[in-house]
């Protein structure tokens, strides 16, 4: 009866959680992604996340991937890249965690899978970016700036307009604001895939890869654990074969019926981006959208046949 098991103990950080001060490829990552678990709790928590992911339905953003209406799709892709730039720059400016910026992009992609924005409303993308980041900050950050502090580019929004957009996002996403991201998996995968390496080094690299991939994949197309595992594997060893990877993945039994092919294509995308980066010295993160727009068209998506195609009515 008094047999104490810490299984259901939940641990979280109180008070002075550390922040990643600035996103910079050389910045060492803080301890945030080394969850403060008590030993065996991490395994349990990851299992819980896996089961949560089972409900993850690849629901591509119709606006980003529908095959017709190419001009709007092209516009939207480029608008999305602008949004990513703005969000990650602003995240750095405020000293938010990378996770916060990433989370706001999951809101962004989910929103666009349910509502469309077309070329005639370029301001709407900016408004969406501000509201997504503000919502993610409220979920993740301890110090949240007021809406008027968010930097504006071409358009200046009244705070009540931003608040209205927040409400629209909240109800469009049905208040499911705790979207899964790859970040909670990183520490776990490092201990599983590369137990002898220094976790900090691998995690720092893996986070770089994850952030870089935001530009190329719709975050609703891939399970977060797949992105996390591919990033950790790429950070650990850039020369893995498909067989070697399958072997490593099979070590994680609780993962369920994971498609190792998805991990592999994600891994390959990272390698490809690394090669491109060597060719073009400009930072991946803040590269101009012209290079990647439409070049990589949902490279990871294997289910394009099932996508909903919703018409755009041009206005």
């Amino acid at each position, binding site marked *: 009866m008094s047999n104490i098991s810490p299984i259901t*103990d939940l641990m979280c950080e109180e008070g002075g959680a550390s922040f990643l001060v600035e996103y910079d490829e050389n910045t060492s990552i803080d301890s945030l992604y080394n969850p*403060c678990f008590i030993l065996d709790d991490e395994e349990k928590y990851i299992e819980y996340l896996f*089961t949560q992911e089972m*409900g993850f339905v690849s629901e591509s953003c119709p606006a980003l991937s529908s095959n017709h209406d190419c001009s709007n799709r092209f516009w939207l892709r480029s608008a999305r890249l602008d949004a990513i730039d703005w969000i990650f720059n602003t995240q750095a400016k405020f000293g938010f965690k990378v996770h916060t910026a990433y989370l706001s992009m999951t809101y962004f992609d989910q929103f666009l899978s349910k509502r*469309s924005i077309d070329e005639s409303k370029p301001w709407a993308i900016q408004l969406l970016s501000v509201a997504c980041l503000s919502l993610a900050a409220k979920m993740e950050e301890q110090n949240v700036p007021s809406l008027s502090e968010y930097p504006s580019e071409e358009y200046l929004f009244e705070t009540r307009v931003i608040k209205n957009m927040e409400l629209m996002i909240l109800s469009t996403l049905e*208040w499911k604001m705790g979207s899964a991201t790859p970040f909670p998996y990183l520490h776990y995968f490092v201990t599983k895939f590369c137990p002898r390496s220094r976790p900090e080094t691998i995690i720092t690299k893996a986070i770089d890869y994850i952030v870089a991939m935001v530009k190329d994949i719709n975050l609703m197309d891939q399970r977060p654990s797949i992105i996390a595992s591919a990033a950790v594997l790429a950070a650990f060893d850039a020369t893995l074969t498909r067989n070697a990877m399958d072997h490593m993945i099979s070590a994680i039994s609780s993962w369920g019926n994971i498609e190792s092919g998805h991990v592999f294509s994600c891994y390959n995308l990272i390698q490809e981006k690394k090669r491109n980066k060597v060719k073009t010295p400009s930072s991946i993160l803040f590269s101009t959208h012209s290079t990647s727009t439409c070049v990589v068209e949902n490279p990871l998506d294997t289910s394009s046949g099932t996508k909903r195609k919703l018409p755009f009515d041009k206005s």
Partner: protein
Amino acid sequence: MGDGSSNRTNSNSNKPEWLQQYDLIGKIGEGTYGLVFLARIKSQANRGKSIAIKKFKQSKDGDGVSPTAIREIMLLREIIHENVVKLVNVHINHTDMSLYLAFDYAEHDLYEIIRHHRDKVNHSINQYTVKSLLWQLLNGLNYLHSNWIIHRDLKPSNILVMGDGEEHGVVKIADFGLARIYQAPLKPLSENGVVVTIWYRAPELLLGAKHYTSAVDMWAVGCIFAELLTLKPLFQGAEVKGTPNPFQLDQLDKIFKVLGHPTLDKWPSLANLPHWQQDVQHIQGHKYDNTSLCNVVHLSPKSPAYDLLSKMLEYDPRKRITAAEALEHEYFKLEPQPGRNTLVPCQPGETFVNYPTRPVDTTTDFEGTANLQPPMPVSSGAGSMPGGHGSNRTVPRPMNVVGMQRMPHQPMQAYNLASQAGMGPGMNPGGIPMQRGVPQAHQQQQLRRKDQMGMPGYPPQQKSRRI
């Protein structure tokens, strides 16, 4: 979720459309978060069903939607459990962008039940009720913890108990404004205008622990258990005001007086706690006489109730009993066994207490200010249902027999959120915090009835709407 209703007003009323589905009865609570109202559903399907509507205080325009509201709704829409209060709808008032949460209404809470026994009936709560309340509280908590949710603010006023109806006497954990899922961020408790009572706060937090675990909720349950037994808060420390998170020496002092001094021997990680290290003079230096918990709660040290309580009040959070373990404790296997209707004991001869209904301030409207409507004439009493609008179809209903069935002893269900992901979006549990000290209304509403159907669900998601 979020009703898609517009704010068109009809000629008869300035009320937004969503509000017109309710009859507002009056205000039942007020706090830093906003206001809580009692309302009844007008629609045919659920006519007369009582709903608690929580209106979030308007945040400053410049802040946007309040983080507390976002977190509370996000959590509540995911959790479904008999012992967690049910969120039935979220309404957005688009004109002023205010948020309203509609919950199933619970007539009682542990604060009022304890107070009633202490100040009115002058006798302790019967054993069956104490045990059933505790069992259901643990049952709900076990569900939350299995889903990686820590409540963080358990106290008697947040533990609701359903009034007459199919769920009579069923416990509902409420108020998730401070709850969090693992890895979400955490503000120090005193920030954000949130005031949390320190009486139920775990010693590791009082000593400045940076880590929260589900064990903090179990400490609070221990304090509530003792309070159910003695009708007095177990550790009634005087709170030190100030920011942020001042050291609560008096609260620790109250705890040590009852449980004795914590020792590194029994609680090794104590050495790492900031206040333990910093405040050597006070907390390490003071000697406490041997007072014992069993004297305070009037339990035999050999009784199963005492054994369970002392395991909940274990200093070391890692050794503290978990909700799942507590549910398996011998205490719950002995007579009287816990039942579903906590308020009505099955044993003949046990005292049956008629708890008062929640006071309703019928002079307040949804803005929390003006006069609303003339108060309705209301009668009360068992079996007699009052008239008044919205209740024309009410049928007198005797005490529900179904609600008195015993809770079978069964292994805990494996709750799996993923398997619930496909459920209808209308089935969302919720939390209603009730604040004390609401002025007594001239008219108390005692209208209650049950209905078979749930609230209408959230409207189906519209796809690809243009903005």
